[in-house]
């Protein structure tokens, strides 16, 4: 379609034309009768999958179906943290692929995703955690990921507002990844959608999948949607918290439970913290947005629900613990609080897999840490859909539960993920 590129010259040109010349960033086409590939879910992971199908494999007869609006689920509800300091080799590989793709994503998509590699510290506040992170730092050294275990003095230097000798939760050190950071979550979804649209991939919003059809041979044949029935050769399910609902339509079960994870932001204040700090012992993590708000991530509910709102006693828990570590936040007013539905697996690692339904693939189980994985997950899942398997995702198959090959990140990642 030859969209106009975004650049400083485009901004200058539009400034003198009263911004009358901007195109729509992506098209809103009517669905075709049939596509080569249908992706269910236009969040970050779904759009990235479609993008890399087109970019890496030339498959552009693709539709991305979204029941709500683009990036309106967890993509727009997370705390935007990007890091790759995982313990296990398969996780480190896919998260590091992802993090490295983020580095150049703005240029590649011609959309400023505001990737800010400001550094991520995961605080060690118990002796157990300190040993755990030292182990992770050693593992990362073997995996070729640059992380470092730092002592309390260096933590204080990086985060002047921190209280390192709090009586209950003293800071014993931290796992420091200097090239971790944050990005603008909406822009990631918008950037991928715009790039997909430019390649001729259909991004179809307000199109809820209500059923999955199979042909006589038991292979996937298409989907029924709120905008009619659409045929496809291959189907990718990328719906995070609602994976269980879609799996039920496709006729298989998943080792996944959906819970609400919540976050909140404070009123904007002057710049006071230029890194991301995660405190997993107390289930809280915090960064300062470009607007000056302190973005705070909290814990997940312990029981299944789809309410997308979270609960106040979890907010209280999170804030109570953060106040000791960051005394400065004690007088802050909190502006907004929200929740997203995350899909938790038993080993806290994702499922990127073929399914019992032939031609149907699933990418889910990212739990509390999906945003950081968007480019890598899309890259690997696209390869799996196009070629049947991908070295990046081979270890994340559904069969790992039956075979006992867990990728156990529950200890390394804790709840803040």
């Amino acid at each position, binding site marked *: 379609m030859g969209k106009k590129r975004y650049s400083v010259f485009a901004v200058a040109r539009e400034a003198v034309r009263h911004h009358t010349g901007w195109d729509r960033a992506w098209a809103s086409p009517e669905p075709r009768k049939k596509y080569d590939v249908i992706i269910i879910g236009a969040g970050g992971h779904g759009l990235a999958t479609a993008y890399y199908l087109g970019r890496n494999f030339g498959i552009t007869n693709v539709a991305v179906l979204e029941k709500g609006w683009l990036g309106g689920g967890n993509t727009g509800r997370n705390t935007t943290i990007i890091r790759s300091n995982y313990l296990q080799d398969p996780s480190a590989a896919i998260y590091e692929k992802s993090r490295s793709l983020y580095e150049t994503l703005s240029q590649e998509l011609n959309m400023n995703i505001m990737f800010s590699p400001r550094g991520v510290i995961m605080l060690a506040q118990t002796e157990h955690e300190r040993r755990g992170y030292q182990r992770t730092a050693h593992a990362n050294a073997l995996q070729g990921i640059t992380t470092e275990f730092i002592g309390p003095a260096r933590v204080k230097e990086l985060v002047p507002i921190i209280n390192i000798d709090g009586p209950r939760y003293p800071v014993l050190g931290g796992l420091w990844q200097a090239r971790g950071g944050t990005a603008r979550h909406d822009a990631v979804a918008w950037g991928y959608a715009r790039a997909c649209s430019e390649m001729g991939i259909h991004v179809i919003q307000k199109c809820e999948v209500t059923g999955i059809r199979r042909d006589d041979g038991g292979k996937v044949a298409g989907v029924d949607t709120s905008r009619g029935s659409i045929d496809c050769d291959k189907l990718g399910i990328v719906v995070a918290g609602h994976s*269980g609902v879609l799996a039920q339509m496709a006729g298989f079960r*998943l*080792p996944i*439970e959906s819970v609400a994870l919540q976050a909140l932001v404070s009123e904007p204040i002057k710049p006071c913290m230029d890194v991301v700090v995660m405190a997993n012992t107390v289930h809280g993590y915090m960064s300062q947005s470009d607007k000056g708000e302190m973005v705070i991530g909290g814990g997940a509910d312990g029981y299944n629900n789809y309410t997308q709102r979270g*609960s106040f006693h979890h907010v209280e828990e999170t804030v109570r613990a953060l106040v000791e570590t960051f005394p400065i936040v004690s007088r802050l007013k909190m502006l907004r609080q929200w929740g997203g539905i995350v899909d938790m697996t038993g080993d806290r690692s994702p499922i990127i897999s073929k399914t019992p339904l032939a031609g149907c693939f699933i990418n889910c189980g990212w739990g509390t840490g999906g945003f950081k994985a968007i480019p890598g997950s899309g890259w690997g899942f696209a390869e799996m859909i196009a070629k049947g398997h991908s070295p990046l995702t081979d270890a994340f198959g559904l069969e790992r539960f039956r075979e006992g090959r867990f990728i156990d990140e529950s200890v390394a990642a804790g709840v803040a993920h």
Partner: protein
Amino acid sequence: MLILECPNCGVMAEEAELVPGGEAHLKRFGPESSDADFEGYLFQRENPRGVHFERWRHAHGCGKWFHAARCTQTLEVFATYPAQTTAPPQDIRDAISAKRPGWTWREIR
């Protein structure tokens, strides 16, 4: 905040007083069972958007286990019932049917 009535001690207990115990009425499969059954028992979980049955423990109260029938979409609590049963009682199923016609959960309806 979720409030459940503990059928053991009769207290209307707030979420913070309770500990969730996951899916209810799991059938245990041991060493003699098939791989599929064992995998199902260990890992596969019902994850409905709607009617769900769960185990809960009144941890900061009487300390005893019980069951709850809930809607995961609206957080409506249909009923709580004692732990000493392998399926939801019929009167609770009927009460749910009145509110959510056509509901199913595993093979139960």
